[in-house]
């Protein structure tokens, strides 16, 4: 039997972590957001956030995050579905996951080479007489690379949801007269929305604050909340404004989590509890 003391002992690492790396930073950000450049207490930072510059920036952040999530989903769902049908599904899944263990920065740099003016893509286009095309520093390259980076995080939860789906439910749907498409739209997809939601969470939220890829691949042409925070802290040295944007970013994240976090009734329970 565990005594109360040993329980408290086990909780120490958890609380230490929460206090040092979650509560303290958020408190500090909230605190700094209340001061202007010269260190006076003010609410101007919050007022400024609602001016057109920052609202536009927020909107564009959401737009890009939305596109990245959408394309990830469009690629990930069929991929995950196909994976569950293969014979060695765990192996194929592993092959998709392995690249996500490699450092993000390395992979991003690789794309600078691939998309560059003298890279293989341009060389390939040259063969068809397209001439040198600017691929790097475009919206396309930004979304492409982001989708590439995030896709394992979308595939994994969807794969798990599909894999757990009771196959006799699909038989039942066919048995009751449903075509393959109706079976997908009325049974398979509704029962895997939890996986889809988890995937959206894992992609959309980090996409809101991307800044490294915007720098390297989009050449600062795409400005997201992440890049704005970096600029405020490192370039303009306006910690107050940077913190304010961070506060809003946290709020947005919480909202997204609440929206996508609702669990559907009975999904994946296979009808047995």
């Amino acid at each position, binding site marked *: 039997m565990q005594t109360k003391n040993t329980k408290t002992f086990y909780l120490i690492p958890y609380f230490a972590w929460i206090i040092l790396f979650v509560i303290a930073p958020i408190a500090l950000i909230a605190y700094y957001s209340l001061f202007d450049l010269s260190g006076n207490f003010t609410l101007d930072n919050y007022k400024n956030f609602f001016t057109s510059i920052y609202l536009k920036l927020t909107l564009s952040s959401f737009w890009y995050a939305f596109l990245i999530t959408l394309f990830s989903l469009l690629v990930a769902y069929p991929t995950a579905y196909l994976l569950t049908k293969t014979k060695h599904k765990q192996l194929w899944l592993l092959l998709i996951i392995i690249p996500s263990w490699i450092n993000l920065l390395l992979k991003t740099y690789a794309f600078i080479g691939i998309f560059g003016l003298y890279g293989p893509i341009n060389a390939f286009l040259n063969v068809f007489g397209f001439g040198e095309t600017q691929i790097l520093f475009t919206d396309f390259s930004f979304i492409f690379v982001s989708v590439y980076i995030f896709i394992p995080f979308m595939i994994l939860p969807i794969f798990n949801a599909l894999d757990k789906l009771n196959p006799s439910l699909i038989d*039942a749907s*066919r048995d*009751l007269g449903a075509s393959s498409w109706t079976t997908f739209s009325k049974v398979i997809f509704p029962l895997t929305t939890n996986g889809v939601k988890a995937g959206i969470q894992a992609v959309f939220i980090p996409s809101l604050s991307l800044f490294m890829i915007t720098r390297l691949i989009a050449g600062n042409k795409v400005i997201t909340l992440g890049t704005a925070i970096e600029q405020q802290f490192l370039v303009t040295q306006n910690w107050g404004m940077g913190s304010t944007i961070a506060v809003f970013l946290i709020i947005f994240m919480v909202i997204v989590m609440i929206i996508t976090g609702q669990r559907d009734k*009975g999904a994946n*329970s*296979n009808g047995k509890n």
Partner: protein
Amino acid sequence: MSETPIIRFENVTKHYDAETTVLTDINFELERGKFYTLLGPSGCGKTTILRLIAGFMQPSSGNIYFNGKLINNVPANERQVNTVFQDYALFPHLNVFENVAFGLRIKKLGKKEIEEKVLEALKFVNLSGYENREIAEMSGGQRQRVAIARAIVNDPEIILLDEPLSALDLKLRSEMQYELRELQQRLGKTFIFVTHDQEEALAMSDEIFVLNAGNIEQSGTPMDIYDEPINRFVADFIGESNIVSGTMVADFRVRIGEKEFECVDQGLNPNENVDIVIRPEDLEITSVEKGKMKVKVDTQLFRGVHYELSTYDDEGNEWLVHSTKKAEVGAFIGLDFDPEAIHVMRLNETEEEFDKRLESYGEDAYAN
């Protein structure tokens, strides 16, 4: 047969890969409106037959006919067959009403018609008032009924039931046996029921197919199969049996060990080796002097309705006895039985040969 059989299997074979054959050259015909049971141990191929009829898989060779029409390549969603699955396979994201309405919505029936039919189907399975329940809120027996309602609401010609009672507790299971049988008679539809439970099969079926290792061992009414099992496997699988080896000395004379007994079987070769079945309830306890056989009582169990005695004769054969009389463990008792109680089975006899032999006995031997 005047009417075309609703289902006909013609030399159907199914194998998943070169080595594993699930069904070997299966032939049978099913009549409309009867309750059929496919009975056999797990892995005998009974569920495979069901899935072939439902359209979830195609035969490797051979043909399946539905109302005389070849249906080998008709997909599951275009067959007039509905299945009640072993785990019910109810859609957890839909409530009871929507689960039952699923097939009707696909047929694009009107809203009012759907509601009428769903409520009627739920009434049929005694679930009126449960329309808005979630599946997770239903008990095992209720889910079972929802699954049945979901199948019958589509008015299919055949209803397939894949061990639908196996997940229920004993009491509920015997209740559902009555209900299913009654439901089948009210609907007048063809039911094909898969089970490994011989009691279930005996209680519910018009006709039973006993399967073993991808072959139909025997088919017939529950009484045929119980009273006249074709071989050791069927005798052993259906009910409790005493099966011993013996020799047919002459017509109506069979030898078990050193003793000869009178029986009702004839037409076998003299001194042919045979298997002999005597059901435990056909053995009667009597005194050693009066009995046809002398055995020693090894164990005795009280089974409620009767005592179950495990006894051994001098040659070491075990004889199971069901009796309302008690005996003493370790004591010698006599066993008495009628000549009709002895059922002689030829070794490796096909069902065709078996049926022919039974017919040849004529009315005299089997009048009683």
